[in-house]
């Protein structure tokens, strides 16, 4: 009898599943106008691996639309199928896919990872396909990030540079007017005074209602934002500023210099001594008005607009605080073409269009992040001489530098991030940096000779 009941149950559920499958079965994807416009050998669908971000996808869809109309529909037979994975899984996903022959034509590659792809030849070099003039469309930092040895591997999608945004209501209440230009940015000590002034604990229970600062996007430590402390405490050209030896393999004497240790000590003090930022991070601390300052690229503006409505959040921006040299890490994203693509010509044409000013213009409309195309700054009001995002462009031009360039970047990034995390919790900066430098050298020894 119980078996009967079970059979009945299974039967009912099967019906539900069948129904669900009918609902789930994808509608016939081939749209008629694609069928009409055959390419030289029929319609072409490019497969594109990207990072999860619905704004980005919308941008690419629109770029694709105008790409298809280019030159009277020269490429109207090209379609793109997007696959997305979260940022943290992108690199593992690309690594795993190498084992089955990189089953896409295009992928979105993070600037620092370009060296990995170049070193391991899992990206098609494009040096011969871009003219001098085309190369001059972009920031030189983007070209540096997109190159390996003398090969240009892929054009940039966009740029970034972290500066210090603030909640203007809070700075006004504290009577603070942060400088508006990159030329008179605060030193770290001046910034610390501002953070202390904006840390508010009204009920005196030891837990501020508003913290002074959140250094970095997200809730974790990483080279992109936290590596700035170290590099900023060296004069331009010094080992501390370089962060790594010329060979791309040496870290002792660069990562753990006395200046680097001093800088990371300051970083620890922010949490434990001056207590201007919480030891354990709080998600959306700046967006939910629990911190007065935040070190972030300009993409934060989009998040603020989304959560609070356009202009619902009274923000301002100032330069990034510095010790000896102002530093912001540039963060290019790049187009990569798989070496196994069967549609190199179409993939290249799309990449060329998407990274041109026309494509980047559409991109910016959706994503609202610092373009990598220099030409665009002439037409975007917010980056004009008195535009409210101008300072990001100035910073990029004045002190934006790529992160260290080595095929061992992920190894470095893992260990530096762990060391930085430990330092916020109270570990000795000297010990942490020395141990990290030693371990990284062991891990990247396998790349010996990559630079020759």
């Amino acid at each position: 009898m119980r078996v009967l009941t079970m059979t009945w149950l299974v039967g009912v559920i099967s019906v539900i599943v069948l129904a669900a499958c009918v609902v789930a079965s994808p509608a016939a994807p081939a749209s008629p106008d694609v069928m009409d416009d055959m390419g030289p050998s029929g319609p072409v669908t490019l497969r594109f691996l990207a990072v999860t971000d619905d704004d980005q996808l919308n941008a690419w869809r629109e770029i694709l639309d105008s790409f298809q109309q280019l030159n009277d529909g020269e490429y109207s037979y090209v379609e793109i199928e997007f696959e997305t994975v979260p940022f943290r899984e992108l690199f593992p996903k690309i690594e795993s896919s190498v084992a089955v022959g990189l089953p896409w034509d295009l992928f979105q590659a993070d600037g620092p990872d370009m060296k990995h792809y170049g070193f391991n030849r899992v990206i098609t070099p494009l040096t011969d396909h871009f003219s001098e003039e085309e190369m001059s469309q972009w920031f030189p930092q983007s070209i540096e990030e997109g190159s390996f040895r003398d090969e240009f591997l892929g054009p940039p999608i966009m740029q970034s540079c972290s500066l210090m945004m603030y909640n203007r209501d809070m700075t006004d209440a504290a009577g603070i007017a942060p400088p508006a230009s990159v030329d008179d940015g605060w030193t770290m000590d001046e910034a610390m005074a501002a953070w202390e002034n904006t840390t508010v604990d009204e009920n005196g229970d030891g837990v501020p209602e508003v913290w002074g600062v959140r250094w970095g996007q997200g809730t974790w430590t990483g080279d992109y934002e936290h590596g700035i402390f170290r590099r900023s405490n060296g004069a331009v050209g010094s080992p501390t500023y370089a962060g790594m030896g010329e060979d791309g393999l040496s870290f002792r004497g660069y990562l753990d210099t006395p200046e680097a240790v001093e800088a990371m000590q300051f970083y620890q003090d922010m949490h434990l001594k001056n207590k201007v930022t919480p030891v354990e991070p709080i998600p959306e601390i700046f967006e939910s008005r629990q911190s007065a300052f935040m070190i972030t690229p300009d993409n934060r503006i989009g998040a603020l607009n989304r959560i609070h409505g356009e202009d619902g959040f009274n923000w301002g921006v100032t330069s990034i605080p510095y010790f000896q040299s102002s530093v912001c890490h540039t963060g290019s994203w790049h187009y990569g073409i798989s070496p196994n693509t069967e549609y190199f010509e179409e993939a290249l044409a799309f990449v060329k269009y998407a990274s041109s000013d026309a494509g980047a213009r559409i991109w910016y409309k959706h994503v609202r992040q610092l373009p990598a195309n220099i030409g665009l700054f002439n037409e975007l009001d917010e980056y004009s001489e008195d535009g409210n995002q101008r300072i990001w462009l100035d910073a990029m031009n004045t002190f934006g530098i790529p992160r260290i360039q080595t095929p061992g970047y992920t190894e470095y990034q893992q260990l530096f991030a762990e060391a930085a995390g430990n330092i916020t919790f109270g570990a000795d900066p000297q010990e942490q940096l020395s141990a990290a430098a030693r371990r990284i050298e062991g891990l990247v020894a396998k790349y010996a000779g990559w630079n020759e």
Partner: protein
Amino acid sequence: MALLEDLSGNLRREQAGLVPPSSKRHRTWRSTLWDVALGLSYGVLFLLFTVPFFWMLFGSVRNEAEIFAHLYPFSWKTLLPIQWTLKSYADIFGISADGQKYGLQFQRFLANSFFVSFAVVCSSLVINTLAAYFFARLKFPFKTWLLVFVVATMLVPFQATIVPLYIVVDALGMANAFSGLILPWYASPFVIFALMQFMQDIPVDLDEAAVMDGANLFQILWRIIVPLTIPGLITMSLLEFQFIWNLFYWPLIVISSPQLQMIQVAIATQTTQTQTFWGRTFAASVTASLPVIVIFLILQRYYVQGVAMTGLKG
């Protein structure tokens, strides 16, 4: 039966008529107190295990700006919304303007997950039951070593075999297809090992009686073993279902087409490099948990009801 309850009073035995009832007034007083204590303990347990879930649930129906805004000091605002809204749900199901703008369709990912989980559970019910019966009841040379062969497959960290498994699945032409999500899991060492324990607890004389009646191995399995293993089968189906339902890394690697993607990976799409859409993430997580909780609620009768019916197992 409720042995711990028995420890704290002889209520059950009184009800069963096993001991003479004490004076009526005395009993009422004690049982009332007992009921209150029991109810309180239930309440505490309930809260202990569901506070994060309700936090997520209420987080999914509040205005995005307040989700993390009232963590401290702890008050009703920490958990309960100030501004109630169903926007996050409208977003993920593509009903709202934002949802349409981004083409969000979580109903599809739910259906995909449901289909894959259900297919795995169905095949698992058949194939693992057969294998467990083999290990629990049948004679075979080197059976112990075969069992080690099966159990050992659980011992290797998945992170080390995921890429080789991807290569295998790709070579079989199952990458980026439901078959690639279903076939690698259609048999499970965990389920075989579990069902084996349940089957070994069934008295062997029941099988022997069936053999006298001329039943073959399959008939013994179907008529004797399976009916007596129903609680185990249901438990394993449920655990298998939630295992597949919660898969994240495998579908992330093996599936490329968004139309085929499973729900846990879809939830992760609401985290971009620079921000997390917490409202949608919470709404999607609630939507992903509820079906399994409901299935569990429905199946509970098989754990607790009809104890007497099972009796001595026939």
